[in-house]
């Protein structure tokens, strides 16, 4: 999953996106506004110098501004505000390292964007200030309508060049918004960029929508919808809008989680009496029951090997996290630190599992190191739900309360930095971070 494979020309993949959009034009969603609440103490000083521009630029944020925001929201970088810069170079030969050293900067990104014939072309260079060395020099292009994709792509390249870890700025978020008014509740399943922009509504319903889960190729979402008056599991192809109701048995049909090959879903069904975890082969519809206990077994999520899975069970008397190393293995209990631990989501490398953890009267997000068993509480907020780890393992998004409303908050996966994504109106909940799309 994480090995670096061939990355298609961004222009080609964006063209595909645009063509498919002609057939299905999803409704505009509510954009989320990022509010940085806490930067990491160890954030790396970087200057994203405003790119020079020539030709007709698309409206909205400038490419370099989007890159600056991306790096800041990772919590790992502290971009210098442009008004504090001593000069505004756009090419490498204009960079005077002494100026940037004076400003305490470790990296400088410069570039130019030109627009011609409906296409944006960007040239950009990343410099290490102390070594006076160019780390990246590259070009990228995209349709003018996709300037945000172009910017996120450059952010990914910069992030990887400095940290050695693949960037996740070109990935997507799926989430559910809930608006309550006189006509009752309206649930909307939405997909946006990771910075909350370009939100599009994919499904709207008067009945609850829960548990969106990305397919490994990020082309489909599985989720739970109550649109028939009871919970059923659906698979929704984003490019076409085609939907399939894959599980509608008596009782619960919930908590879908994809296998690494995209061929199967883990899910919770109660058709045989109480909540148990099953694997469904999507092509055949065949089911295999994977848990067998009178307690509640739910919230499955495959581990990084793709063979085993984590789940929540209250077989000990209250909800706790368990792991099965394979479908037929005995479940092993992972959490012991408090009486309520639920909804596990493993990190991509198999070193940590993240979950909802009750301590005193509050619900936080915590993680357990699977080797040592050490547990760390990551959040200071108190009504936390639905953790989802970024595909590079560096960030974590979750839902929490802000006043009466639910908002999304992103933190560094080790608990360092934080920013929140408040909805423009109503609740925003159930975030799911997409895989990296190649």
């Amino acid at each position, binding site marked *: 999953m994480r090995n670096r494979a061939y990355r298609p020309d961004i222009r080609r993949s964006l063209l595909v996106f645009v063509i498919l959009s002609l057939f299905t034009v999803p409704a505009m969603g509510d954009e989320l506004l990022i509010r940085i609440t806490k930067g990491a103490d160890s954030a790396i000083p970087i200057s994203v110098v405003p790119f020079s521009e020539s030709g007709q630029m698309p409206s909205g944020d400038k490419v370099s501004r989007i890159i600056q925001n991306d790096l800041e929201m990772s919590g790992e970088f502290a971009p210098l505000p442009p008004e504090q810069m001593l000069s505004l170079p756009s090419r490498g030969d204009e960079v005077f390292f002494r100026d940037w050293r004076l400003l305490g900067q470790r990296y400088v990104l410069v570039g130019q964007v030109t627009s011609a014939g409906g296409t944006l072309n960007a040239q950009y260079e990343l410099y290490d200030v102390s070594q006076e060395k160019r780390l990246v020099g590259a070009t990228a292009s995209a349709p003018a309508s996709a300037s945000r994709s172009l910017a996120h792509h450059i952010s990914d390249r910069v992030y990887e060049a400095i940290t050695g870890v693949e960037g996740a700025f070109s990935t997507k978020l799926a989430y559910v918004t809930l608006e309550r008014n006189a006509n009752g509740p309206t649930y909307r399943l939405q997909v946006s960029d990771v910075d909350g922009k370009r939100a599009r509504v994919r499904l709207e319903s008067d009945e609850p929508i829960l548990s969106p889960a990305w397919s490994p190729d990020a082309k489909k979402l599985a989720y739970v919808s109550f649109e028939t008056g009871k*919970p059923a599991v659906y698979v929704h192809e984003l490019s076409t809008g085609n939907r399939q109701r894959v599980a509608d048995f008596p009782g619960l049909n919930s*908590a879908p989680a994809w296998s690494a090959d995209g061929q199967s879903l883990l899910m919770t069904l*109660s058709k045989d009496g109480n909540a148990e975890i099953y694997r469904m082969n999507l092509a055949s519809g065949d089911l295999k029951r994977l848990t067998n206990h009178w307690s*509640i077994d739910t919230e499955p999520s495959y581990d990084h090997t793709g063979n085993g899975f984590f789940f*929540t069970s209250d077989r000990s008397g209250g*909800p706790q996290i368990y792991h099965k190393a394979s479908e037929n293995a005995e479940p092993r209990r992972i959490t012991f630190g408090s009486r309520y631990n*639920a*909804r596990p989501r493993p990190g991509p490398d198999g070193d940590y599992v993240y979950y*909802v953890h009750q301590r005193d009267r509050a619900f936080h997000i915590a993680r357990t190191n699977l080797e040592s068993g050490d547990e760390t509480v990551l959040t200071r907020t108190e009504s936390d*739900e639905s953790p989802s780890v970024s595909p590079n393992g560096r960030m974590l998004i979750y839902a929490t309360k802000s006043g009466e409303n639910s908002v999304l908050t992103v933190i560094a996966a080790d608990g360092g930095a934080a920013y929140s994504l408040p909805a423009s109106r109503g609740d925003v909940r159930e975030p799911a971070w997409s895989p990296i799309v190649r």
Partner: protein
Amino acid sequence: MKMTSSKNVFALIFSFALIAGCSSTGETTGEGGMGTSAGSASGEESGSTVFGGGDGSGVSSSEMTEQERMEAEARAEQAQAEAMREITTFYFDFDTAEIKQEARDVLVAHARYLQANPGQNVRITGHADERGTKEYNLALGERRANAVQRFLVVNGASRGQTETVSYGEEQPAVMGSSESAWAQNRRVELDFE
């Protein structure tokens, strides 16, 4: 604290239902043509007065009075059951699906009613408060709905008359994040269709 507040809510609904039940008892008596002063006298009293005045024979009067007393008792019982069946919401403690002691008589009344009316169906919806995770709460709501369903079936309802669905924490009865709101949201509702 949360137990106290949920008990209060229950007691309030219960006493309200009993008051409503009393007035309907009076109306039943009125239909029998035995007096219209529904509120003041109980059904039993008005019944014996009428029969005592209308028949001279002590023996037959005594038999009739006994029969009438039993009928009246049955009517009162039915009225009480009807009053209890006004209660269709049942509350639970955090992370449990245990039916509370005070809910049992009411659920028995519902079960007997379903038994006596085989054409009547009931939708049983389980709910949880907002704390904890949505999917676990969905399963917890189902466990609560199933506990009520089993109780109804054990006490005479047919399984085919019942349908369960869990909404987890998605349909709070009361908005807000207080102990009192949570107590009112951890519930099972019966919906007679």
